[in-house]
């Protein structure tokens, strides 16, 4: 459905963040992209959405067979891709209702019925409808951000660290929401710090390091991978004594 081929991108001519990234999000699946801070995860999403001027400098992005590379963000969004931005991207001085309606900017005809679906999915937002988004808790704001993305009836939804900074209760709620949105047929590309949760719901996963995909596989495969365990799942095994105490050299292949 979404396909990235050999994407090279950065922010200025001197810096390069993505050094040839290829990945794919198949129809109806959840794909997660793991990686440390600065690996290029957000840059990947921004490149897909066309948010960085004149990028990618090499490679191509295709969505349902159409090239998105170098198209403007508005038409990329209108082609059926919705972004849940990093840090939730609230319009803080606008009400929850206004935030949601902005998601349906080009979908006036279906806005009311989609709004009912979104409020059914997140009943908490119904009560908060006329409050300014800035007064909501982080978890509630994340629901607004996801709801706003759904307002455009997307075929693919891109989530940039949706669980970051949320209380554990909300983290679970967000992952449940992602799973149920996917169950209704929306493809998902998920960027997460919470690798454990992400790998649980992901059909397929990629590991990004220094702008390169260093590992890929199904969620289950990656959960069993020693490097992923150590780096992303925090399961380090350090022997009490002997040669193993030295930092193990990491090889991806």
């Amino acid at each position: 459905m979404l396909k990235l081929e050999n994407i090279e991108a950065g922010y200025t001519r001197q810096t390069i963040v993505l050094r040839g990234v290829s990945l794919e999000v198949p129809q109806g699946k959840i794909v997660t992209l793991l990686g440390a801070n600065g690996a290029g995860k957000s840059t990947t999403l921004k490149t897909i959405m066309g948010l960085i001027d004149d990028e990618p400098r090499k490679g191509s992005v295709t969505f349902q067979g159409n090239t998105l590379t170098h198209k403007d963000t508005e038409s990329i969004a209108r082609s059926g891709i919705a972004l849940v931005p990093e840090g939730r991207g609230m319009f803080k001085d606008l009400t929850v209702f206004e935030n949601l309606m902005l998601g349906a900017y080009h979908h006036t005809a279906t806005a009311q019925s989609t709004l009912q679906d979104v409020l059914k999915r997140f009943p908490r937002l119904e009560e908060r409808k006329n409050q300014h988004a800035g007064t909501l808790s982080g978890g509630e704001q994340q629901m607004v951000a996801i709801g706003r993305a759904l307002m455009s009836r997307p075929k693919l939804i891109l989530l940039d660290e949706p669980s970051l900074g949320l209380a554990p209760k909300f983290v679970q709620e967000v992952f449940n929401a992602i799973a149920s949105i996917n169950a209704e047929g929306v493809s998902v590309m998920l960027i997460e710090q919470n690798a454990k949760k992400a790998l649980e719901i992901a059909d397929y996963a990629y590991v990004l390091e220094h702008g390169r995909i260093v590992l890929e596989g199904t969620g289950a495969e990656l959960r069993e991978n020693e490097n992923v365990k150590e780096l992303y799942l925090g399961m380090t095994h350090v022997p009490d004594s002997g040669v193993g105490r030295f930092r193990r050299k990491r090889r991806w292949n």
Partner: protein
Amino acid sequence: MSLEQAIRLLIIGIEVGSIYALVALSVVLLYRTSRVLNFGQGELALLACFLTFTLTSRMGVPLWLSFLAGLAASAVAAGAFYFFLMRRAKAQDPMGLLILTLGFSLFANGGLSLLFGVDNKQMPGFVDVIETWQIGNFSISKNSVLVAVAGLILMIGLYFFVQKSKIGLAMRAVSQNPEVAKALGIPVNVVLVSSWAVAAILGSAAALLLAPAISLNPSLMLDPLNKGFAAAVVGGMTSLPGAVLGGYLLGIIEAYVGNFVPAFKLALAFILVILVLVFRPHGLLGEKETRRA
């Protein structure tokens, strides 16, 4: 000061204040959506005035029609200026853009002077500026009332446009978070072109209301623009209600102070600006802005 004089000064203050408020609104609207000040605002307003003047006084077009044509012309010119120059400018930092509008202002002023002349012209108005209404032994200038009422109607119109219309909602979204607005598929360019156009309409309406009372020449908007900027700073650069408050406040204070110490009138606005910047830099109604590095 007699009560009668106090009321007379209040009416003058409100009249002048509505001009300042309209200019301040145009400044704030533009600042909020595109983070830039437009020094060319005065020339856009001049374009509207000269066009209205030429259509009415030279070609005999009805005043209201040439009034609308003037507003439309400045709206189109502002939209085009944004779309063809500001948007494409490689210097996307606020300072570079500011200089660009300054250059446009100087260029346009020269162009308008060349086209329409620098002599004083008598701008036709909807009412005769010397006509008054008599209430007992008290007289009110018809023009003052017209200016105040028209200003109020425009401000209410702007309120509904920004708060209730779809494009107004998009404007508020773009002013808060342009990148997210873009990612949601909101046509940011359409939003910015319309906010430039609306700002130009506000500024031009102020000029068209002001011009009949004084004479029309290329420096018509110099003083109102300075005062409008001052009113915007006093009210808070990010607040539309603040611009209205700042405009009326400045107009009224100026009327009273100017009555007693005429020499002080010109400096007053900037003394207010200095006081606000020292004691309340975000303005009366503006929000404290935390600047990102």
